[in-house]
C-alpha cells in the first residue's frame, strides 16, 4: 500500500519536473521558430544571389569572376535586389512561423517575440546602416563580409531568447564573414554560403529535430 502511494507520487513528481522545464522554456524563449522559414530564406537568398551575379557579371563575363566593377546604375539595381530578397525572406519566415504558432495555439506577437526581435534588431540595424554608409564611401567589397558578421552577431545576441541552435548558426556566420574579409572580391560566394546554404542546412536540422 505504502509502496503504491510512493510509486504514484513518483510519476507525479516526474510530470511536475517536466512541467517546470516546459514552462520555463515556453515563458522565456520563442520556440515556435519554424525550420521551414530557414529553408525558404536560404532558397530565396540563393535566387537573389543569382540575380545579383547576373547583374554584376553581365558585362565582364565569366573570365573576370573575381573582379567586379560596378556602375551607379548597377549598384542601385543591386540594392533593389537585396531589398526584395530581404523582404521575401522575412515575409516567408513570418508566414511559416505563423503557421507553426497557430498549430501550437500560441500568440505570435507576445513578450517573447518582442524580446527576441529587439535583441536581433539592435546589431542588425546598426550593421545595416553601417553597410549603407560604407557602400556610399565606395567600399563595395566589404559589404558581403560585413553583412555576414553583423548578421552573425545579431543571431548570437538573439539566441538567448530562442532555440539554442541559433547561437551556433550565428557563430558560423561570423567566422564566414571574417574569412570573407580576407578574400575580398569573392563576397558573393561567401554570401551564398552564409545566407543560402547555412540557412537551408539549419532549417532542415531544426525541422527534423523539432518536428512534433
Amino acid at each position: 500500500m505504502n509502496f503504491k502511494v510512493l510509486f504514484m507520487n513518483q510519476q507525479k513528481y516526474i510530470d511536475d519536473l517536466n512541467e517546470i522545464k516546459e514552462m520555463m522554456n515556453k515563458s522565456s524563449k520563442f520556440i515556435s521558430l519554424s525550420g521551414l522559414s530557414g529553408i525558404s530564406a536560404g532558397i530565396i537568398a540563393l535566387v537573389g544571389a543569382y540575380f545579383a551575379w547576373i547583374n554584376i557579371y553581365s558585362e565582364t563575363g565569366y573570365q573576370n569572376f573575381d573582379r567586379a566593377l560596378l556602375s551607379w546604375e548597377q549598384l542601385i539595381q543591386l540594392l533593389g535586389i537585396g531589398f526584395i530578397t530581404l523582404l521575401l525572406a522575412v515575409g516567408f519566415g513570418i508566414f511559416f512561423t505563423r503557421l507553426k504558432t497557430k498549430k501550437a495555439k500560441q500568440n505570435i506577437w507576445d513578450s517573447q517575440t518582442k524580446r527576441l526581435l529587439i535583441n536581433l534588431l539592435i546589431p542588425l540595424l546598426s550593421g545595416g546602416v553601417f553597410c549603407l554608409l560604407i557602400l556610399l564611401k565606395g567600399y563595395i567589397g566589404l559589404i558581403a563580409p560585413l553583412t555576414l558578421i553583423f548578421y552573425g552577431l545579431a543571431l548570437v545576441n538573439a539566441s538567448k531568447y530562442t532555440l539554442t541552435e541559433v547561437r551556433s548558426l550565428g557563430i558560423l556566420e561570423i567566422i564566414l564573414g571574417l574569412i570573407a574579409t580576407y578574400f575580398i572580391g569573392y563576397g558573393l560566394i561567401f554570401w551564398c554560403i552564409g545566407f543560402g546554404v547555412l540557412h537551408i542546412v539549419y532549417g532542415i536540422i531544426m525541422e527534423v529535430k523539432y518536428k512534433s
Partner: protein
Amino acid sequence: MKDILKDLNKAFENRIRLGIMSALVVNDYLDFNALKNLLGVTDGNLASHLKSLEKTEYIRVQKEFLDRKPNTKYSATNEGKAAFLKHIKAIEQLLK
C-alpha cells in the same frame, strides 16, 4: 526520507501554481494575459491561484495603466524564488 518530504512545498502541489512559479522565476515579470496564454486556463482559475501565491508572499503584484487600460504585472519575490528552488531540489532528491 522524512526530511525531503518536509522540503516539499504544499503551495506548489497544484500544477497551475507550479506553472506560474516556473514562468515567474525565469522572467522579470509577466502580466495576467501572458500567464493566461502560457497556462491555458480561465481568468477566474488563474486569479484564484495568483491570489493564494500572493498571500504566501511568493509573488508580488504591481498594478499600472497602459494606454488607460489597467495592466497587472506579477513577479516572483526573493522568498518565492528560494522556496521554489527548495521545492525543485526536494523533488530531484525524491526521484534519485
